[in-house]
């Protein structure tokens, strides 16, 4: 996410960042309204989640310069759940069988 934004001490970079986040939200909304469910749509939605989360973590929370434990844990959270969403799309029956309480 470093190359997407250039830090400025007066916070001017935040304006561009905000517009970028708004644009990605509107893309999500357009997908919700128009796109038929598919693997591609799921992947696009998950990529948008990751990019939005990384922008907030890196630039709004400014965790890049913080404890690597906090930074990597926060990032991992927003990689793992979108990845699970893709796995659920690909292998729903396998996951359903795995999580069934009785045979």
């Amino acid at each position: 996410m470093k190359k997407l934004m250039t830090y400025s001490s007066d916070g001017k970079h935040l304006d561009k960042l905000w517009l970028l986040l708004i644009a990605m939200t509107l893309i999500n909304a357009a997908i919700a309204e128009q796109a038929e469910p598919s693997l591609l749509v799921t992947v696009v939605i998950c990529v948008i989640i990751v990019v939005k989360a990384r922008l907030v973590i890196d630039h709004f929370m400014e965790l890049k310069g913080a404890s690597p434990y906090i930074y990597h844990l926060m990032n991992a959270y927003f990689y793992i759940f979108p990845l699970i969403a893709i796995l659920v799309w690909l292998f729903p029956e396998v996951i359903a069988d795995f999580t069934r309480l009785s045979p």
Partner: protein
Amino acid sequence: MSILNKPSPAEVSVLSLGSNGLPESTIKPAFDPKAIPGNPAIWVGIFSELTEFALFFVIYFIARTHYPEEFAAGPLELHTAAGTINTLILITSSYFVVKGIFSLRLGDAKAAVRWLWMAVFCGGLYLIVKYMEFQWNFAKGIETNTNNFYTVYYYTTFNHMLHVGWGSGGIIWAILQITSGRYDANNHAGLIAAACYWHMIDLAWIMIFPLLYVLR
């Protein structure tokens, strides 16, 4: 200027012992306080909250595999515009919070307070939109027990709504610290803590919105 905390007086005194002759390696604190934005306690809270939301997400994924028809049809009946508006509101509120922090760092406390009140206003707006969305659902007959998708939807979004409520309280508390003169350009760790908590609420919604309103 860094957002990170300065060492507490206790830690400074320990560190100063080092300069008085004790070997540095024997007096290292358990963690580097400079690397914890806000304070350590808020991160216990943030990760606790994220664990709670993680449980909601796991329940969502498991329920989705067991009731695929309900989860494919459910989002179509929800008020996508309300979900989108609330996403925009939360992102904008996060932007206002971080603009407030930058203003305070530059020594402009008045502008900082203005930005932070705008963030609180967004929090209030979010709650109103969410209330209207729930009313719209009820009018359509979408209740908590309509099916498994809506049960997950209500549990997750109502829980998130509560977080927006008390997160706004945290920002108001930080505003009062600035207006009373206790926080300034060099000392505002509590504001950073409240801001990190607020961004966590925004991050949780960044996951919730596509899962419940977009993915089918």
